[in-house]
């Protein structure tokens, strides 16, 4: 039982990292992209390539993964610069699909649909993170680190500019802020942090394939942030906990086997819809005054 709970802990921490990094983008900056699973995946695959194929240490893999995801994520900023709102949604959807296709088809590097197995566990100066307990601890360290890092950004002047862009981009531009630069940076940071989740995840499960990083996954991450509360980082932590434990709890309950997966999705959807109607700001509302509901 213990290793099952630790398994849940690692999973939850992964989604905490994904949640806070995604919240930065859609909650604080108001940039509605739905491609986060793609950067999660880039982090996972790049780390895998660096550590497994090139044989370099885990930390190097982590750094390279973060840089790679930040670069790719920065690319998404460019369509965002040209237009906003629904265009960005579509552009990010397109991004998500393209990157998924790259994972699927660039077989020589990613192993294609079969995926890659035997990814080594992380090693730090001779000591390997093997046991479930050790990995649980590692995941907590990384999750806390990600949380503090994003929190730092959000309460800094940069964070204020993000919120200003979210509220009224034109005015922010008129006030002399470099909106373009800020947007590129926030995309890069968001993607980079998501990559750490990818690295954590890939070396934990030791097997990845493209189907871990689909649009459905992006929507799950969206749910984590929305349910927890966009614009509230603690909310993302809560969202991660709820949305990781929920399907596992369902697994322990005897649902009719044939319907389990669909019922789970229905519960997610109902949860999302319910929140949109009754509490669009999520469980934990944003701490400053502006609500998410403004037209």
């Amino acid at each position, binding site marked *: 039982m213990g290793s099952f709970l630790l398994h849940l802990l690692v999973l939850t921490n992964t989604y905490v990292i994904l949640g806070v990094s995604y919240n930065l983008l*859609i909650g604080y900056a108001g940039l*509605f992209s739905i491609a986060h699973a793609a950067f999660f995946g880039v982090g996972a695959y790049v780390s895998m390539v660096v550590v497994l194929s090139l044989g370099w240490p885990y930390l190097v893999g982590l750094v390279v993964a973060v840089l790679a995801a930040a670069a790719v994520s920065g690319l998404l900023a*460019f*369509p965002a610069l*040209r*237009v*906003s*709102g*629904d*265009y960005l*949604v*579509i*552009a990010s*959807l*397109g*991004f998500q*699909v*393209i990157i998924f*296709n*790259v994972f*699927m*088809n660039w077989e020589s590097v990613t192993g294609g649909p079969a995926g890659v197995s035997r990814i080594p566990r992380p090693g730090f100066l001779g000591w390997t993170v093997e046991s479930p307990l050790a990995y649980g601890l590692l995941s907590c360290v990384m999750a806390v680190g990600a949380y503090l890092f994003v929190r730092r950004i959000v309460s800094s002047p940069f964070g204020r500019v993000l919120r200003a862009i979210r509220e009224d*981009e*034109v005015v922010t531009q008129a006030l002399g802020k470099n909106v373009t630069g800020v947007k590129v940076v926030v995309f890069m940071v968001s993607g980079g942090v998501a990559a750490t989740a990818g690295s954590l995840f890939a070396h934990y499960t030791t097997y990845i394939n493209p189907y871990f990083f689909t*649009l459905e996954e992006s*929507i799950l991450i*969206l749910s984590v942030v*929305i349910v927890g509360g966009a614009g509230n980082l603690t909310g993302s932590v809560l969202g991660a906990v709820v949305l990781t434990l929920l399907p596992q709890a369902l697994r322990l309950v005897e649902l009719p086997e044939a*319907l389990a997966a*669909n*019922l789970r*999705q*229905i519960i*997610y*959807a*109902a949860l*999302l*819809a319910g929140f*949109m*109607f009754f509490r*669009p700001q999520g469980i934990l509302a944003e701490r400053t005054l502006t609500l*998410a*509901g*403004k*037209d």
Partner: protein
Amino acid sequence: MGLLLQLLFNGVVVGAVYGLLAVGFGLIFTTTRIFHFAHGAVYTLAGYIVYSLTTTLGWPLAVAIVLAMGICGVLSGGIEVAIYRPLRARGASPLVVLIASLSILMLAQNLLAIFYGNEIRSLAGAVVFSGFEAGPIWVTSIQLVTIATCGALFGLLKLFLRYSRYGKIIRALANNYEAARIIGADPDRTFLVTFVIGGILVVPAAVLVGMLTGLKPFGGTSAVLVAAIAVIVGGMGSIMGAAPGALIVGISENLAVWRIATEWQTAVAFSVLLLFIIFKPTGFFGQRVRKMEV
């Protein structure tokens, strides 16, 4: 050369069907500015309704289609009345509406999966469509039916937009939202009309796809995605522009495989889209994109 023409022809057929979806989606989006993800849900449901009516109840296809159009029109309008309108009344942001629409899509797809199972259902049964050679290309009967039907429907829609009362209001709203509101166009009623029309248009698309390939519960997601791309390529703000936009998507999807391996097909199509957004966000027929739109 024969292959190229064949791919071009296939692209036109596929594009025609995409067009039905795109025009409905574009109609709704241009008029109401709502990103109606749930359009995919109505589309998927349409196919299954016709399937149940013809296969389980044994009714003739024509009757099933007409009935399905009625049901889907009502359903589509119902989503506007029961979901979007109350959200608008609460001052919900477009993001909130979008997520609500997405959840409806997820709900509907999973309910359909539970009810009908995940297996692919065929509307044509074991019928293998006949075809013939027309010069270097091979044409099947169902492909001809598809082109004819879609063409006719586009024509009808264009007439509606040009000459009917609601058509004029819709075009006014599409052209200049604020101005149209000022001169008294009733948004709520007009919105409802666009949703109903969108719901009706998905039915022939679903039937054609059901015959050409098959029905599956989760097909709605990619259908909406393609519709959205077609609308962007055609140009937001131009309702009928979504039709040539869809044709372009269909053709480029098929032509892409002429020289590129088929597995990269989707990636190519989406890359084209992204290039469009970056370099020509107004699409082919749209007007200037107002950046403050959201």
